[in-house]
């Protein structure tokens, strides 16, 4: 059972306090999008073996959504960060690069800040 640090209230919350919210950093497509882009947004999700970015909500706590960067195979947590961002911040990417050199995930990668 995972423990994630809520970056909003500072609690190290175990999974029973949290609600999993699926893949992070989706870009909303809406009226005006073509069918393919909309389908991508609505249904297509990453399923990586390794580095992954997710959304979680501290549901039985401060109620805030946050992002987590995590390894799906070892369950190592590289860091949690604000939900109010469209991309992982530099310190999170650096932390991942330190552990998983050469990582990439969709448009994000170890080279982002190099």
């Amino acid at each position, binding site marked *: 059972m995972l423990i994630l640090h809520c970056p909003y209230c500072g609690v190290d919350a175990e999974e029973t306090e949290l609600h999993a*919210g699926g893949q992070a950093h989706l870009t909303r497509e809406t009226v005006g*999008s073509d069918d393919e882009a*909309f389908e991508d947004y609505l249904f297509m999700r990453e399923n990586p073996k390794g580095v992954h970015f997710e959304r979680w909500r501290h549901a039985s706590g401060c*109620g805030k959504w946050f992002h987590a960067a995590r390894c799906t195979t070892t369950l190592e947590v590289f860091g949690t960060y604000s939900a109010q961002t469209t991309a992982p911040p530099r310190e999170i990417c650096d932390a991942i690069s330190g552990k998983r050199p050469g990582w990439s995930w969709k448009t994000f990668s170890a080279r982002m800040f190099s």
Partner: protein
Amino acid sequence: MELENLQREDVLMSTRLAAGGRLLNRGKSVRFEFNGKHLRGFDGDTLASALLANDQMLMGRSFKYHRPRGLVASGAEEPNGLVNLGKGGRFEPNARVTTTELFDGLTATSQNHWPSLDFDVGVVNNYAARFLPAGFYYKTFIQPRAAWKHVFEPFIRQSAGLGKAPKDRDVDTYEHFYAFVDVLIVGGGIAGLQAAKTAGASGAKVLLIEQTGHWGGRAPVDGAVIDGKSADDWINNTLDLLDKMENVQVRSRLMGAGIYDHGYALAHERLTDHAPSDDMPRHRLWRIRAKQIITATGAIERPLSFAGNDIPGVMLASAVRDYVVNYGVSAGDRTVVVTNNDDAYRTAIALKGAGLDVPLILDARASGGGALAEEAAALGIRIANGKAIASVKGGKRVTGVQVCAQAGEGAVLEEIACDAIAMSGGWSPVVHLWSHCGGKLIWDDAHAHFRPDADRAPTGADGEPFVSVTGGADGAMSFSGALANADETARHVSKRIGRKAKKATPPNADDVEMAPLAPVWKMPQGAGIKLRSKMWLDYQNDVKVSDVQLAAQEGFESVEHTKRYTTLGMATDQGKLSNINGLAVLADSLNEEIPQVGTTTFRPPYTPISMGSIAGEATGERFQPLRRTPLHDWHAGNGAYWEPVGHWRRPYCFQRSGESVEDAVQREVKATRDSLGLLDASTLGKIIVKGPDAGKFLDMLYTNMMSTLKPGRCRYGLMCSENGFLMDDGVVARIDEDTWLCHTTTGGADHIHAHMEEWLQTEWWDWQVFTANVTEQYAQIAVVGPNARNLLEKLGGMDVSADALPFMAWADGQIGGFDVRAYRISFSGELSYEIAVPASQGRAFWDALLEAGAEWQVTPYGTEALHIMRAEKGFIMIGDETDGTVIPQDLGLDWALSKKKNDYLGKRAQQRSHMADPDRWKLVGLETLDGSVLPDGAYATADGTNANGQRNTQGRVTSTYHSPTLGRGIAMGLVLNGPDRIGEVIDFPKTDGSIVKAKIVNPVFYDPEGEKQNV
């Protein structure tokens, strides 16, 4: 001659010795009952030792062949000694006698036999053994079906299962406990104790847990001398020392059951199993988070595979020694020891020291043993090197052994009379906990066992190892080795959590020199099939060496497949004894090395834990939270027939005495339509949305326009998910310039609030909007019917006239002295007000309404009357007309979809081709021709069949009721091109094959002009 005599089984005895038993309090006698016999033991006994002391070696019958089964072990690894324990509300099957502490009044019965333990009919399976080989069940499934049904299944059913299922409700209580520590140490042997001492000295918060009721593990039995003191003295000193450390907690009868991700561990505490009590919880499940975990779980001795190794009286050498040293019980008078290592000599020496006879030690190693062998020889014990057991003599009890050379095929050299056999095939570290969370193993050739590979440890949230192993569990098989290993491990672990353990010399223990072990997987080496099919690997599940070989021969090369095919290791002991021996046989059959074959996966729990402990406090009334409205007590006292709605309990109707549920519902509808009804609507969700961008936000959330709503007015709104499907509906009231109050469905309050927060926090975080879920702040009561206004005017305090409070308006004010917010909204089609008061005043307000409404025969109604009235009006219900695949357009709610808005959640999805398909089923009313009520969920059939040969369908019923207003069945349903087919009659087959014909009609059955609600 001697052998002849001993073959009379009734003279063979296991018995209590005159002296000895380090765990016994011989001053305190304990009475207990086994299979109806009244027996006595001592305080400190386990049920196993007490039974042995009473010469009860036979414990039960094996699972498949019903062979007699006696004790093999003395701890958690025992495969045979399983009993039905206790009675009534404290009955428990499959209780392990070796870990059951004896108490006064204990009752136990043996399992898996009929009609009695001594005479068992199922033993016929034993003679049919060659018809029940590995994979028997799978093969039988494939054989003629008739044979399965009429021959095999009844036979298997008769013999299946070990213990009985409990019949009575558990009378005990259970609970959980959350503990957070720096270092959790599992196992209270000398390694665990030393690790706790070292880690404790670093200042870390340490929790040391031990599954049994006593400390020190095997060391005292094996005669360890530590720092010049006896093991018992060293253990007591260490416990005293740990007791003085404020940062260290030690707990016995607390078993480490499993290790999980991110330092999570479950431990099972047995508080009253050894002393039943009504006052205390029976078990407590510890939910532990540890920064680091050290497993000091020791090692388990392996049996040897020789013919007849399952006959009662054949035991692990360590167990024979435990019973003598710990409990002063002898398994037999004459014990033959058979071994491939030095440790078993300790048993011979202990037996001799207790005055018992050891006629022979069979050492499979041609070169024999080391210092301990010399000690045994000096005691006058005969030792035969390079020798083995060809076969055990006896039925329900060992009567002798046939001796052969280990190197040969089993030619009998001599026969020795004996009544017990102590066997040792070496020791396997208990790696279970290490493996639970992904720790990997390496093969240790010298000891012929798997042990943890420290380089491939389970890793935690930071990606670093969080489990370490020490002592025997790490393959440190000597006392001094285990202590040094524990000290070093604890030091290393302290460092990992940023602490430093003070330098101290680890205790020194005197170790004897041991000769190397020789792996022996079959005895003798060249045993033929006849012997191999009497060599048991898994005692409980009756898996033999020949079965594993057959599985390999039939192509089951993966160890996981072999396990399932043969059921090796699948019994309640989960292969604690059989695992390595089975692997070795499989590897041999496949001509591979053991490490290449690998092991099966160890999964938690280490030994079975009670279901009660998993449930914890969640039993009976506490099983699930039940949400009560402020009016709950009134409902309960006035005939409420409850309906669960989410976790809420809502009255379905209020039954009067002698009234059926159906009649009550019909009465409530009529009374409301004719005069006056009251509904407890408190469960409806109420969410405040406030801020400069609140209007913009609600326009995105609802399909219709909420930003244009005027303060003081209400509007019905629909919410869709991003993929277009209806998710909730309700009335929105605009409170002031930047504040709205959104009503949700009863089940929707929490998830709609979460939905709002999700969009605000993760998509539109720059919008200035706050939300608050105030559902429970209010008691909300619907006052419904032609006399609704009369009632409120009678109570007085605010103007509720049609002019002052028109349909779809709201106002704050006072009614009957209560501060209220009155909404003029209707879900029934009647003149209706929903009145919100602070929850604490809900009951008083309800009472005031009832009292003042008496002159109009005011009638509280429940959810079913609510449903019928809304269906009569053609109002949809989320969850009835919607099921997660329905869009507003399907329900004819196009009027609620704003054309002016560029965007709202779900709008883009509703433009997808399938959503815009004109052939989607659409909402209509359905009127049965015969006036009957359509079955809920019934499908309308169409011509022809589909690809699966099933009738085509063209619609389905979504809501169906008997309408008391119309005196007939009414229904709503989704029908292909429904709105274009008004007047057409379609068929709804019922489950009995008959057909109900129904006419497609407008879904509004009652007052289509809305004249009643707009007065």
